């Protein structure tokens, strides 16, 4: 047993690790089925078009998925809890509109960032608080906040975008750190924070416990409400960040932005192996899910597949990927 490597910390990995001595190769195969699928997609697209495997295009692709990924980290935690969050799209629009407004008023990138994060975290807190204390399904709470914040964004702006073409604002979406786009850097940071929290902190392990069996967790002295509120708040913070990045990329806070965004995020999280029933999922898996979806969208567009056909192809590939993943898990 002691031979197991230290880093095998994740939940899925725990299950796998436990079986390691029974068949290490099999375990690896199972663990990495989705990774193989991802790599397969990379290889296929690289063969099919020269434009795909260039540093420029890869960074471009990562910049495009950065927002899904940032929101996906929080969504993964929420889904591990056994909850769901439908509000990110609306909240991002709201944060974008408000962030742009604040920047217009203050001209301060720092204040804009703080304000955006605060709004996001605030909405997340409200979602978590109502869900936990009111004992109502997160589906309902966040469905309500989704509508409310979309509505408020439209009321506040009268439907018009709040445009800010100032570099100080747009840098959050279009800036670079060295050769790396800033959104990609932010994404990486959020992923690292997410992995750290879920795998290396007490709070993180309590998320899995509550998602696995909330009653037993409560009976073990875990404050289920506090964990829930904490996860929603943290997730809201990330959503706030993503909202700012989106508005900055667009150079305007759009009240209609990111409509249905949450479904893209949830799809990536589920594709990454999390279960809506709770207790299962990893940030790492979500990242793979996000990349698979991003590569598909990017690669198919580069291949000039019409957007109608893209939908069909994407649908087929996703279901086949998950089938392979499940089958390899079972066999191994």
């Amino acid at each position, binding site marked *: 047993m002691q031979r197991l490597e230290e880093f095998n910390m994740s939940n899925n990995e725990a*299950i796998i690790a436990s079986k390691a*001595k029974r*068949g290490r190769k099999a375990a690896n195969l199972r663990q990495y089925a989705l990774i193989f699928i991802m790599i397969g997609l990379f290889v296929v697209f690289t063969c099919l078009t020269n434009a795909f495997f260039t540093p420029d295009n890869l960074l471009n692709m990562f910049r495009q998925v950065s927002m899904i990924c940032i929101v996906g980290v929080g969504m993964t935690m929420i889904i591990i809890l056994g909850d769901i969050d439908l509000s990110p799209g609306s909240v991002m629009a709201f944060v974008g509109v408000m962030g742009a407004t604040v920047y217009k008023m203050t001209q301060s990138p720092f204040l804009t960032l703080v304000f955006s994060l605060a709004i996001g975290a605030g909405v997340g807190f409200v979602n978590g608080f109502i869900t936990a204390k009111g004992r109502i399904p997160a589906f309902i709470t966040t469905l309500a906040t989704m509508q409310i914040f979309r509505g408020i964004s439209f009321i506040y702006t009268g439907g018009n975008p709040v445009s800010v073409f100032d570099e100080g604002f747009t840098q959050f979406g279009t800036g670079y750190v060295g050769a790396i786009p800033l959104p990609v850097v932010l994404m990486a940071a959020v992923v690292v924070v997410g992995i750290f929290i879920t795998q*290396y902190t*007490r709070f993180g392990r309590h998320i899995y416990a509550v998602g696995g069996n909330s009653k*037993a967790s409560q009976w073990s002295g875990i404050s289920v409400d506090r964990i829930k509120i904490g996860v929603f708040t943290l997730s809201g913070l990330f959503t706030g960040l993503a909202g700012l990045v989106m508005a900055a990329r667009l150079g305007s806070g759009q009240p209609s932005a990111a409509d249905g965004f949450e479904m893209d995020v949830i799809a990536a999280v589920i594709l990454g192996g999390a279960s809506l029933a709770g*207790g299962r999922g990893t940030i790492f898996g979500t990242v793979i899910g996000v990349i698979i979806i991003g590569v598909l969208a990017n690669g198919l567009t580069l291949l000039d597949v019409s957007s109608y056909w893209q939908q069909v192809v994407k649908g087929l590939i996703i279901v086949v990927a998950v089938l392979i993943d499940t089958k390899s898990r079972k066999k191994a």
Partner: protein
Amino acid sequence: MKSITKSFAGVTVLDNIQFDLMEGEVHALMGENGAGKSTLMKILTGVYTKDSGIVEKLDQGGNMVQMEHITPKEAQEKGISIVFQEFNLLNNMSIAENVFIGREPKTKAGTMDWKKLYADTRDILKRVKVDKEPRVLVSELSVAEKQLVEIAKCLSYQADIIVLDEPTSSLTDREVDILFDLITELKSKGTSIIYISHRMEEIFKITDRITVFRDGKFVDTFKTADTTNEELVQCMIGRKLNLEKNTQAKDYKDKDVALEVKNVNVNVTLKSKPFDFRLHKGEILGFFGLVGAGRTEMARIIFGIDKADKAEVYKNGRKIILKSPIDAINNGIALIPEDRKELGLVLSLSVQNNLVLSCLKNLSPIRARKAEEKEIALKYIKDLSVALSSEEQAVEELSGGNQQKVVLGKWLAMKPDILIMDEPTRGIDVGAKAEIYSIMRQLAENGTSILMISSEMPEILHISDRVIVLYEGQKTLDAPVTGLNQEKLMHAAIGGI
């Protein structure tokens, strides 16, 4: 069943097992936790598919027919029914629907025949002497009642082979007697019964033959009449044990009171009188009673799960307010719940994560000292001799008894001042039981006060210093164990004072 072999992901759980069952006999299946008893039964009933081996069964015409890769449904149709060790009930549905699931009576129009369903269920419930309406949801039953519903469901199949996997682990003597009457009746009709239990006295009372497994291997089959308790234990665990009444029980009257509970009223609807009791430092207090006596409810109140209007809890003489388990834990109170699957464990998590779940508070919030956690986990895995392949194994893959050990370990790891144990040895084999008793004794000697709820009289008499008996929410006995015996306990448990 011949040469049955089964392995999970490379670990051989059953190795070339053989087992035969004669018509009309009660055949006990014995072995330590994790020996493979439940796994064999799951193969017989089609839940698992065997890797190799042969299963044959007598058919109507009197020929032995081989059964290949059957499903649970086919097993039922072939006349095999089972009470699983772990509950297999649908909490969101009524008792009646659970009992007749998959075989609900239909009206001529093809719809559900609710009247007949309820009437049939009422009849069956009468047989197991459960006084509940068929319409009641299973989620509202106590663990013991759930167990009886499982037995009722099993009976309703009218199978010619019945498997009972630890049916009595959560029952008190009264229900056990009901069950034994049923078994005798079935036996007389030629039904064969496979009986799995860790309670030795039951084995000798009810079974005809015994088969022993150890570590997934067949050890021996012999007639019950030809063996003794000691021989059987020796055969199972390879050494001798002694489980006598606690003779060294001390009187703790003069010691400090660790926990005082006043005015607990556990069965409001029955208008029972509230009662008080005290638990002294280092004392092991046994709580005995029949199913539904209110022991679990009392424990829930002390642990802050339920709110009781008037109950007051004092620890070391100081009144404490318990609004949630967190308050209880902060006050050094631990509760080992009786329903390990629903309340005790996070089945999807690893053994290690479960073991450290309630003591994480004492560790660093950031997982800098992961080694420390592992150390704790390994300590309790060793102390409780949990059979597993790795501490990273998911708890749901452990055998029933080993899961129970994980629940125990989890609360021992918290190092409580006051340990409440609700049926702590449920499903635990004799060898491990003895180890747990000695751990309890050790804890008590180091100053931990233990409140143990149990339905097993020998256990109560063996480990307690003092015993309280509840009957329908009222205290009918509170005395040092030294003056007690089984008759006195039973007398108090059925309401005699």
